[in-house]
């Protein structure tokens, strides 16, 4: 930018502007008050015939509203909601259309009335001053002074200071009580129902699963033993403990050395809770061994410890180490060795 191109000038608005010639759009004046638009005379003002038409239109809209109200009443009786859930559809549809007509008729009619027939001359109304007049301000100061004098607020120091103390301390009990509202999170985010020896059972029946019953290429949706019979906190526990079990050809599994014992003859179990934001990941593709999360398309590779192959998830799905008990039922070797679900502050 060449210095000589810069010009300086004092503009009409009193501010100094710096601009490069050829680029700046220079406003010569402040934006001036355009004033009111010229009044445009409406057809309904000019011709009595148009006014009469408009009147009829408004009346028609109001009559339409009346029709809508009666129609809604009729529809409510004519399409009753019975035991059959599908009757809700007709009832809601026709009742709703009637009420729509009834309300829109009034609304559109009123607006049409105001726009076509009520006076439409433009009016400007200046705002009120925010500042009070000198008299009012002086009177207010007088009142405060008088109140101070009569109550002795400035004079009686003891009362004033104890009052400040009382006001400062009264929210304290409430703050302490609010702090204890709700359950303490504790380590609930780090542990699930799975323990050493917990049997893997089918969702929702809770029937234990035999390893020999799981064929290659099959998928089982699994809950821990005992969850199906729970009454309290069942969903909270299920939301953490839900597991997807699949059996792969053992040749297809690419396992880390230290995690080889976590699977059983090609049967692997993974947490169903996505490590991104906790959706249930259960869209399993049997040939590609991809496990897809429906919410944000995070894709995990079941054949390789559920490592992330696509999408926003940052960590693989936690694997549940499994084995079989003496009767051949699948059991957990332990809880998940890391917290399930999305990342949180301390992990």
């Amino acid at each position, binding site marked *: 930018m060449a210095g000589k191109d810069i010009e300086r000038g004092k503009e009409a608005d009193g501010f100094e502007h710096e601009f490069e010639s050829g680029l700046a759009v220079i406003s010569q004046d402040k934006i001036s008050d355009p004033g009111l638009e010229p009044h445009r005379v409406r057809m309904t003002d000019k011709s009595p015939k148009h006014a009469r038409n408009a009147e009829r239109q408004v009346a028609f809209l109001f009559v339409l509203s009346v029709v809508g109200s009666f129609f809604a009443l009729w529809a409510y009786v004519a399409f009753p909601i019975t035991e059959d859930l*599908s009757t809700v*559809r007709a009832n809601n549809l026709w009742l709703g259309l009637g009420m729509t007509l009834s309300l829109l008729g009034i609304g559109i009619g009123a607006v049409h009335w105001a*726009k076509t027939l009520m006076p439409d001359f433009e009016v400007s109304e200046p705002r009120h001053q925010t500042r009070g007049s000198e008299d009012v301000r002086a009177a207010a100061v007088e009142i405060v002074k008088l109140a101070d004098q009569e109550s002795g607020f400035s004079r009686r120091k003891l009362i004033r200071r104890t009052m400040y103390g009382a006001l400062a301390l009264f929210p304290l009990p409430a703050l302490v009580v609010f702090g204890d509202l709700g359950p303490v999170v504790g380590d609930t985010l780090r542990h699930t129902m799975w323990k050493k020896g917990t049997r893997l059972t*089918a969702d929702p029946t809770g029937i234990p699963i035999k390893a020999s*019953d799981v064929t290659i*290429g*099959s*998928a089982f949706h699994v809950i821990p033993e005992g969850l199906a019979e729970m009454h309290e906190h069942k969903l909270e526990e299920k939301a953490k403990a839900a597991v997807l079990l699949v059996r792969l050809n053992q040749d297809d599994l690419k396992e880390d050395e230290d995690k080889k014992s976590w699977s059983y003859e090609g049967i692997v179990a993974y947490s169903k809770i996505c490590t991104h934001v906790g959706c249930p990941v259960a*869209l399993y593709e049997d040939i590609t061994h991809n496990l897809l999360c429906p919410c944000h398309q995070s894709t995990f590779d079941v054949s390789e410890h559920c490592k992330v192959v696509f999408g926003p998830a940052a960590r693989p799905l936690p694997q549940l180490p499994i084995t079989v008990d003496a009767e051949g039922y699948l059991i957990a070797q332990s809880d998940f060795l890391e917290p399930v679900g999305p990342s949180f502050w301390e992990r």
Partner: protein
Amino acid sequence: MSLRRKINGSRRSPLAAIFVIAAGLLFSGGGFAVATNVVESNVATSYTADQIAEGKKLFLSNCASCHGLQGEGLDSNPKLIGVGALAVDFQVGSGRMPGQASGPQLAKKPVQFTDEQIELMAAYVESLGPGGAAIPEAKYLEATGDVTHGGELFRINCAMCHNAVGAGGALTEGKYAPALTGVSAKHVYGAMATGPQNMPKFDDTYLTPTDKQDIISYLAYIDANQSAGGYALASLGPVAEGLFIWIFGLGGIIAITVWLAAKSN
């Protein structure tokens, strides 16, 4: 009958009569099963050598170029040994096989064979090896099961891919879970039991034949009953619904606002 009574009465021993009656019943019963194509029980043992031989001819001329002369699988094409009769019934009966072109997924298309030919091919593939799922008994295909239980099982096992009302949905890299509306009970059962293409299979120990029947009943129920909540917009969920309300709902509100602020002529 009169012929049998005569035979029974005069020239043959009673044992021979029983044999003849038994043979007659077997033949007529078997013929009935073939003619009506209703299979009453596990058909794995009921295919005749003739059926298997006929099936082999069809297999060699229609399937072997991809799946190998003995169904052993070629290149990336799956081997068919041990897949069972039901897999053939599903794949060929839904038109997915014979495949037309390779791609992310083989789609449904008009069926290429008659029911009879499909049964013959199923007989041959069934004879290749044990382990596959058999054609289910007809009673498990009737939509008379527990719809509530079927709905729960569907939401746990199927809905994540096939949508809560079976409208289908997208999977990775061009694959998709097809819509289940209008799919025959036998094919729904076949898909669950055999796990075609990328679908995992659901073993009978996990989803029993009765459970599968409940799921079939649930699908039949939602097929027959329209959505109670109004127009379903193809049941595709929040994306379709959001698009609709953003365009038409918000558009309507903007139109009303413009009209409210416009001056009357």
